[in-house]
């Protein structure tokens, strides 16, 4: 009894309470993230590996750093310009096909860069649909649009990838806002602009900042997009780490670059936390359905249509081009290639089911899809569990949180290559080496997904007014019941969004996967890469077909999560 009351008083101290919530997540991060990284750095930053600061090629450090910061800032700005109106669209309006469009705008986030590159190539490449159309229309000999291997391609791909983060996080917060506040402002004589500036925006600010941080960090550590769409002129820190570690075998330089990238991530996160340091206001959340309406008036309808069309053009058309290309043969009719090979085909899909060469590493598409979903399922369980703990730990601003929160974000800034090599050093021993099942794979995915889940759950939890909980407690509800009947229903939408992020990150992750995968458990991205790295029209077509399957599986996953019946949906 004495112990219980002692524990109880411990739980009342905010710092200790935060510490209790942090216990498991911190142990998880420390063991699976910081341990391998530190072990790797300790090994590489030693004279034995030829580490010598004076002979280091600093040119390969500063120039990527400069480019990384520049492209990340510009990409983030562009993503906000597209994403914020998108968030407004989804938060405020009802229009036909809304759910489908929302799901489609999430798909880019899942796709491995190999596929995204193939998608943009199918749309804007020299033989892409747009160039083919223009060439046929104006009778041109050469493709008029030069898209690949330009700086513009990097920016467009980043917007394509990350807009969904802004849309999901911000529109989720926007929907939760209590419409009565805006009505009150209007009644008091505020113009719509004043209402937005004084009421709506300040309430959205934490979500916008959180989403911006995630987008910036994602752009900051961009790898595949820069390598495959930007071409050889452009190199980010992450690309340089890849080059130095895997092509030059210059591991010490790769370690220096990794440390620099981690430091930048840390500085950016701390800066972000300072910026959003003002106490967030908690207000009674409104019903999600109240503010949503069908666009009226001519102008409003026009704006909504324009937004839908541009989201479609930017986020959906590359996916559609890719999917279309997996059903179409596009061989030019040249004399010596035998008969004309054009037209619709299912050959690429049919061929996926055959192990034509009797290859040991043949992957049946169903098995790959199943493996991917299984890893994603485990990732969702891990991240939601740990993410909820962290979100509760972060609820109060304590000194402990100020330190732990940036450390939680660091996995976003860690290079997959560095982490993968660190895993090899540290976990290449029992018990992990005894498992045939690559449990480290969903764990690595969870490290990347956790910051997303926390950034989604955090603002949602902050917005729950203490008064609601107090009222429940006064009415005699046990703490467990308060959680089940107050917190959980109000958190449900954010939990769904977090789950979708975990699903998408896990399904598309390819970097760490290459280090941790076991041949018995190939994932969809691994299978795609297997086809695309071999010559021949059939392999290319099969890679596109497999990518289309990945998109379908992901879409199914998102729809499934969105239709999960969590309590709270029909509470109001």
């Amino acid at each position, binding site marked *: 009894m004495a112990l219980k009351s002692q524990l109880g008083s411990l739980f009342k101290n905010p710092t200790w309470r935060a510490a209790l919530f942090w216990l498991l997540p911190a142990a998880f991060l420390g063991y699976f993230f910081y341990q391998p990284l530190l072990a790797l750095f300790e*090994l590489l930053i030693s004279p034995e590996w030829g580490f010598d600061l004076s002979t280091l090629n600093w040119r390969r450090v500063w120039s990527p750093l400069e480019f990384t910061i520049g492209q990340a800032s510009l990409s983030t700005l562009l993503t906000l310009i597209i994403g914020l109106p998108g968030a407004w669209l989804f938060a405020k309006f009802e229009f036909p096909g809304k759910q489908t469009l929302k799901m489609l705008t999430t798909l880019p986030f899942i796709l491995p860069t190999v596929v995204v590159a193939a998608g943009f190539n199918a749309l804007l490449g020299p033989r892409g649909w747009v160039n083919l159309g223009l060439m046929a229309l104006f009778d041109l000999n050469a493709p008029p649009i030069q898209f690949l291997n330009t700086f513009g391609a990097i920016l467009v791909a980043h917007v394509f990838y990350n807009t969904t983060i802004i849309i999901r996080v911000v529109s989720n917060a926007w929907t939760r806002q209590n419409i009565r506040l805006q009505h009150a402002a209007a009644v008091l004589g505020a113009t719509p602009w004043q209402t937005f500036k004084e009421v709506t925006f300040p309430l959205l600010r934490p979500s916008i900042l959180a989403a911006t941080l995630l987008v910036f960090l994602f752009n900051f550590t961009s790898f595949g997009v820069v390598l495959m769409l930007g071409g050889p002129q452009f190199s980010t820190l992450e690309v340089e780490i890849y080059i130095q570690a895997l092509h030059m075998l210059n591991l010490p330089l790769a370690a220096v670059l990794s440390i620099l990238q981690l430091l930048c991530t840390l500085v950016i996160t701390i800066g972000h936390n300072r910026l959003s340091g003002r106490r967030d206001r908690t207000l009674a959340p409104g019903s999600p359905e109240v503010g949503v309406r069908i666009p009226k008036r001519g102008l409003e309808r026009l704006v909504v249509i324009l937004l839908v069309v541009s989201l479609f053009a930017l986020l959906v058309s590359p996916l559609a081009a890719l999917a279309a290309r997996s059903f179409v043969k596009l061989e030019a009719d040249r004399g010596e290639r035998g008969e004309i090979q054009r037209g619709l085909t299912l050959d690429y899909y049919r061929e996926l089911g055959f192990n034509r060469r009797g290859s040991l590493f043949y992957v049946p598409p169903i098995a790959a899809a199943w493996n991917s979903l299984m890893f994603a399922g485990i990732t969702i369980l891990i991240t939601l569990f740990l993410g909820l703990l962290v979100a509760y730990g972060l609820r109060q601003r304590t000194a402990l949180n100020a330190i732990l929160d940036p450390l939680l974000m660091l996995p976003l800034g860690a290079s997959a290559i560095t982490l993968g090599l660190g895993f090899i050093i540290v976990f290449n021993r029992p018990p992990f080496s005894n498992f045939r099942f690559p449990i480290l794979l969903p764990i690595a995915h969870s490290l990347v997904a956790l910051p997303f889940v926390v950034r989604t759950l955090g603002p949602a939890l902050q917005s729950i007014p203490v008064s609601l909980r107090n009222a429940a407690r006064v009415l005699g509800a046990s703490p467990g019941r308060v959680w089940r009947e107050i917190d959980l229903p109000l958190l449900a939408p954010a939990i769904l969004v977090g789950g979708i992020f975990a699903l998408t990150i896990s399904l598309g992750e390819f970097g760490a996967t290459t280090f941790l995968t076991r041949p018995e458990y190939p994932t969809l991205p691994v299978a795609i890469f297997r086809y695309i790295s071999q010559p021949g029209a059939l392999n*290319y077509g099969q890679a596109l077909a497999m990518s289309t399957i990945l998109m379908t599986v992901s879409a199914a996953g998102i729809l499934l999560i969105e239709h999960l019946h969590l309590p709270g949906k029909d509470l109001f």
Partner: protein
Amino acid sequence: MKRTYLLLTLTLILGLLAACAPQSASPSESPRVLTVMTHDSFAASEGLIAQFEAEHNVTVSFIRSGDTGSALNQAILSRENPLADVFYGVDNTFLTRALQAGIFESYSSPLLEVIPAEFIVDPQHYALPVDYGDVCINYDKAYFEEHDLAVPASLEELTQPEYAGLLVTENPATSSPGLAFLLATIANFGEEGYLDYWRDLADNGLVVVGDWETAYYTNFSGSSGQGPQPMVVSYGSSPAAEVYFAETPPDEAPTASIIGPNTCFRQIEFVGILNGTPNRDLAEAFVDFMLSVPFQEDIPLQMFVFPVNTEAALPKVFIDSVQVPDQPATLAIDVIDASRGDWIEAWMQTVLE
């Protein structure tokens, strides 16, 4: 109520883990496990490996660890506590690094007798050659016919104005064929001359992309991608792949390789027994198996490279569609290792900046 939830969750998680665990099948004498570490391009016929497994009562587990550089790094970093028993896939551009790191144990396989001396690069037999292939410029036959253009026969001719803007290559810093082509120019023009040559190539509209996939599928006109450049730095075996992987195989390959002296760089891939393996006997058996005729004859259509064993017969599509250069470019492995970084750095400053 709460307990039920907890129990339910636990059961779910446990069930999930159980479903993931491998089905345990225990025959009378459980087979030993031989682990082979290799790169992503490794492929072999299922039946062949099954035969080896049955013969030696062993389960062969393959760890495919990314591209060559990635796999080699993992082998080197884990050398105190090896991840596998056998490592396959280090090539002549990386071999010195592997030998210096001491990841291999020497093994003088009896099958080395049927392998030509030119492939036995390591006289101490820490690394044994398995296969070789040439990185060559592929060209689109139809383009040169339609434009009535002669196919260039040497590296020098590529700088002539009629070939302006017709060649696409890969960045040697990010691509293995890109590096091989850079090495070919160094073998041909020497360390003093290769940068001038690249300057001329760049002035003649050379297109550089990051990786082989982009070069071949997006830029090259002879592949399914139908891009703008009719010449691409690829593999000597790519024309055979165009035939073999075609939906309706054409009578003749749509592409071919330029095989003048020093235009192609020869890559040789090696296998070695990892230092400290507890399964030395099985590892030896597996290396012998890889060098034996059945596996060597399986190599061409699985990995699109040539077997080193002179007794292995080639498949028809290889004989018909793959040209083998009489004089491929080569460089000593320790020279490559010592200068690779400097060469690539100088190349990037000359061509990209």
